[in-house]
């Protein structure tokens, strides 16, 4: 089959699944996990194609660039698609059992597959307007999925999530308008070539950064994340925290290192890094004080996104091979968080179903009742703290190394403080979970729920840590430089 077809299939398979799941409601669950499994297969194929044949560019329907929808797959995009497809697959297998005997499951599957479609389309979008459309698709499906929680708190969180998402997209759309007025094109590569350092370029960059910072919950615009991520159903929380905020981060990376490269001064990078540092400290501190497990996980996401932004000031001053290593480390950190956080939210969902609550203080006996689930929480915790052999360990190691090499030692202080706080919140959780209760009944937990959570946690802790070397070679095929 045509090699470029792999780019199309990772988007059209979940879309097809969403349509079929809407029509044949009684088979929605089966359609859902089958199409996510096929999509994951195609994502592997896509990565293989990009490895072998280089960057794939596709103009859908034969429309020339500038008029039609253009898709663009390089190493970075292929890795992100694979990440999202694997997390979606894990959550889909989990969700089959999770939503069993619940009215929401028929509503869940079409929205869920649309979310997967939007994510993959966003990672592969070749022009800035497609990015806007996929951002809106993502925001609307994510907010509708959050509202499936059905409680007042969930509805309120979903509404706020939707409004914040729309606000972010409007800022982004205004920036696109400015860029189109100046350069007459929406294609990312063409704008990157034509971009000039002038007030209009600055206005566009700042509008886009503001919109995307809102969407990726960068401190101090993180206020909407904890309620939305902690009130959604478990598989939805997992995807929101692992993937949806990552999509906004991916766009920031693309715009920062490719499209707006001449405008991104070290000063701006340092300002962004400072916000990241505050996110790390505030997010970790709030996670330590959180009373509920899902809230802890959500605040921990705020902190982890902060680390990702802290890579920017260091990437701004490094050059050559050192920069390539650091860029790869940033992607590795993002992947590691995606798998670890989705595993943690899935485990929290099992706990919530079993105990009926997720109050951390009252988790005594969890280890006796749910040994495998507790193991998943511990594994995910290892990756969140950044202990070896997790992928996050390598990510933090390179960050530390770069901070010393460039003499920007203050990032090290933040890194150490953040990691200590993370250790504290993970061990506080495990401390309560290991509390002994006499005669705890072992509940029957479906293996289809525990095993995907375990697989995702193992990927974050061992898979990414031990198999990290191949990531850099995958990223080598990243187009327009991607800073490489």
């Amino acid at each position, binding site marked *: 089959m045509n090699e470029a077809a792999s780019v199309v299939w990772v988007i059209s398979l979940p879309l097809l699944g969403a349509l079929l799941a809407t029509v044949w409601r009684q088979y929605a669950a089966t359609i859902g996990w089958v199409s996510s499994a096929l999509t994951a297969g195609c994502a592997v194929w896509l990565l293989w194609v990009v490895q072998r044949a280089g960057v794939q560019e596709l103009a859908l329907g034969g429309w020339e660039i500038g008029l039609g929808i253009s898709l663009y797959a390089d190493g970075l995009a292929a890795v992100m698609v694979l990440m999202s497809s694997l997390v979606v697959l894990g959550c889909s297998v989990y969700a089959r059992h999770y939503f069993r005997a619940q009215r929401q499951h028929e509503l869940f599957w079409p929205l869920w597959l649309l979310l997967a479609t939007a994510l993959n389309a966003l990672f592969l979008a070749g022009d800035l307007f497609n990015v806007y459309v996929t951002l809106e698709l993502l925001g609307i499906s994510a907010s509708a999925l959050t*509202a499936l929680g059905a409680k007042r708190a969930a509805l309120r969180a979903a509404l706020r999530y939707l409004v914040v998402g*729309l*606000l972010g997209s409007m800022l982004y759309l205004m920036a696109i308008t400015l860029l189109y007025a100046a350069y007459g094109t929406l294609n990312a590569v063409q704008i990157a070539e034509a971009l000039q350092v002038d007030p209009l370029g600055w206005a566009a960059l700042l509008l886009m950064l503001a919109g995307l910072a809102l969407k990726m919950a960068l401190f101090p615009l993180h206020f909407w994340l904890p309620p939305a991520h902690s009130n959604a159903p478990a598989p939805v929380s997992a995807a929101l925290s692992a993937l949806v905020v990552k999509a906004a981060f991916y766009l920031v990376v693309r715009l920062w290192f490719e499209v707006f490269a001449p405008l991104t001064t070290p000063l701006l990078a340092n300002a962004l890094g400072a916000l990241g540092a505050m996110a790390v400290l505030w997010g970790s501190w709030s996670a330590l004080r959180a009373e509920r497990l899902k809230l802890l996980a959500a605040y921990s996401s705020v902190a982890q996104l902060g680390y990702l932004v802290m890579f920017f000031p260091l990437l701004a001053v490094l050059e050559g091979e050192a920069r390539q290593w650091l860029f790869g480390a940033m992607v590795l950190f993002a992947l590691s968080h995606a798998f670890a956080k989705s595993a943690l939210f899935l485990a929290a969902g099992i706990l919530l179903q079993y105990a009926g609550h997720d109050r951390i203080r009252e988790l005594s006996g969890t280890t006796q009742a749910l040994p495998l689930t507790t193991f998943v929480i511990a594994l995910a915790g290892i990756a969140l703290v950044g202990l070896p052999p997790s992928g996050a360990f390598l990510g933090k190691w390179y960050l530390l190394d770069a901070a010393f090499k460039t003499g920007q030692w203050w990032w090290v202080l933040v890194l150490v403080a953040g990691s200590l706080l993370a250790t504290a919140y993970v061990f506080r959780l495990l401390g309560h979970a290991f509390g002994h209760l006499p005669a705890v009944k072992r509940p029957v937990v479906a293996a289809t729920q525990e095993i995907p959570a375990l697989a995702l946690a193992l990927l974050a802790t061992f898979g990414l840590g031990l198999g990290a070397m191949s990531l850099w070679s995958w990223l080598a095929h990243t187009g327009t430089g991607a800073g490489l």
Partner: protein
Amino acid sequence: MVGLSAINPQFLYVCAGIFLFAIGLWGTWLHAHYVRKIISLNVMGAGVFLTLIAVAYRGEHLPPDPVPHALVLTGIVVAVSATALALVIIRRLEDATDE
């Protein structure tokens, strides 16, 4: 008197668009009630669309650039669907009885 006719109409439209965008942004951020936030977002959207339409203008004797028009159409569809979803959630919130 120079009169308004001397001012480039495209410039006027762009300014009006940016003004609406700013009002909408301000309203979305400051109003506490969600219906007002949604209306503000729509005002903000109208501002962006107006700017896009003004950008499409290429002079009196040339047809306008079709690409921004297509973007506005897409944007309107997105805005309508998102507004509908937001209104449904607001209704559900009012009907919800738990807590």
